C-alpha cells in the first residue's frame, strides 16, 4: 500500500499525524510528510488517516 498527499490541498490540520504518527508528520511548513515505508501493523491506522483527512488531501494508491 502507498499513500500520496495532494500538497495543493493539504492545509496542515494534522489529524493524520494524530492518528498514525509513525507514518505522517507535519514538517516545519506545516505540510504533511509521509514515511517512505509504511510499517507492518500500521495499515489500519493509515487507512483511517486517509479517510479522516478533512480536506481529502490523502489518497491511497
Amino acid at each position, binding site marked *: 500500500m502507498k499513500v500520496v498527499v495532494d500538497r495543493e490541498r493539504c492545509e496542515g*490540520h494534522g489529524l493524520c499525524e494524530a492518528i498514525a504518527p509513525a507514518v505522517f508528520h507535519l514538517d516545519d511548513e*506545516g505540510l504533511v510528510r509521509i514515511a517512505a515505508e509504511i510499517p507492518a501493523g500500521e495499515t489500519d491506522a493509515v487507512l483511517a488517516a486517509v479517510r479522516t483527512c478533512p*480536506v481529502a488531501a490523502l489518497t491511497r494508491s
Partner: protein
Amino acid sequence: MSTTSVPSSDVDIFADDVLTDPYPAYTALRESGAAVYLERYDCWALPRYDQVRAALGNHERFSSLDSVGYEPSLNELRRGGVLATDRPEHDTLRAALSESLAPRALTKLRADIDQRATELVESVVTRGSFDVVSDLARVFPLTVVADLIGLPPDARHEVLRFADAFFNTFGPLNERTKASLPVADRLLDTLISQMSRENLVPGGWGEALYRAADRGVIGEHQVGPLLRAYLVASMDTTINSIGSALWLFAEHPQAWAALRADRTLLRSAFEEVVRFESPVQVFFRRTTQPVEIDALTIPPGARVAMLFGSANRDPLKWPEPDTFDIGRAPMDHVGFGSGVHACAGQGLARVEAHAILSALLDRVEAIHLAGPPRRHLNNVIRGLESLPVTVTTSEPA
C-alpha cells in the same frame, strides 16, 4: 415506476422541541433508513454517518450551488459565497481563506491566542461564578477573530446578532427565519460598509482579501462574501463548542479530572465535544443526478439534508454514541463537514478551543452548574444561551 415503500417521516426537524432535543428524532430517522423522505419539507434526510460522509465526499452529485440552505429564495442571499459554490469557483474562494486560516498559517498566532485565553479565563475564574456563554464563550471568538480580520471596534457589537440571524436563514421560512431576515439584511449592509478597505485595520485578514482582489487572485465582488464568511462562520460554531464543552465537563466531573491528569487527551476531548454536540447540525445539498442510496433512488434536483448531528451519534459508526467519552478520539466525525467544503476555519476553532480549555485546566479543579443551562434555538446551530457555573480554583501555575 417503483412501488416499493420509501422510508419517510413527518418529523419537523426545525420545530422548537426537536431543536431543543434532536436526538430522539435522529434515532427514529436513522432507524427508518439510510435516506429518509421528510414529508413536511419535500426533501430527503441522510441521518447515518456513512451516507453523510459519502455525500460530502461526492460534491459532483451533491452540489452546494444555491443549495446549502433549505429555502431556494434564501439560498440566493448566499450566492457566490464559499459555502454555496461548486468547483472551480469554490476553490479560488477557499484558497483565499486558507491563506490565512490553514493551520500552517496559524502557528504564529497560537502564542497570542493562548495568552488572551489565559487573561480572559483568569478574569472570570477569580469571580468564582460566571456565565460560560456570555462571559467567556461569546467574548473569546469575537475578540480574537475581530482582531484577526482587523474589524474596527465600533463594528463589533452587532456581529453575534448577525451571525445568529444569518444561520437561521439556512432553515425553512419558519418564524425564526422570518424574524431573522430583516436583521441579517440590515446588519450585513452595516457590517460590509464597516469593513470597507479604509476602515479595516492594516495587516489583518480583511485587508489581505482586498489585496488578493488587487492581485486578481479573487474578484472584487468576492471580497464581501469572503468577509462575511470570516465573520459568520467563526462565531456561533466556536462559541457553541466552547459552551457545550463546559456544559459537558460540568456534567461529567470525572472527565474533567481525567483531562487535568492527562493533558494529552485534550485533542481527543475537543473532537468528542464536537461529535457529541455538533455546533452545525445540518446543511443541505442538491442532487445533480439520480443517486442510489440503500436500494432507493433520490431523484435529481432533490434537496438533501446532511444531518451532521445525527451522523455523529450513529451507533453503526460509534460504539455507545450517546456516551461522552473524552478518550474516544473521534477524529473522523463530520462536525466540521468533510471534503471540499470541510470547515475552512476548523484549525482556528481548535486553536481557540484548546487555548480556552488549557487555560481553564490550569486554574479550575471542578466546574459546577449554578443553575439550569438554557438552550439557544437556531435552525441549524446547536448551543446554549446561558450556562451559569461556579468553579473551584487552584492557584495559578
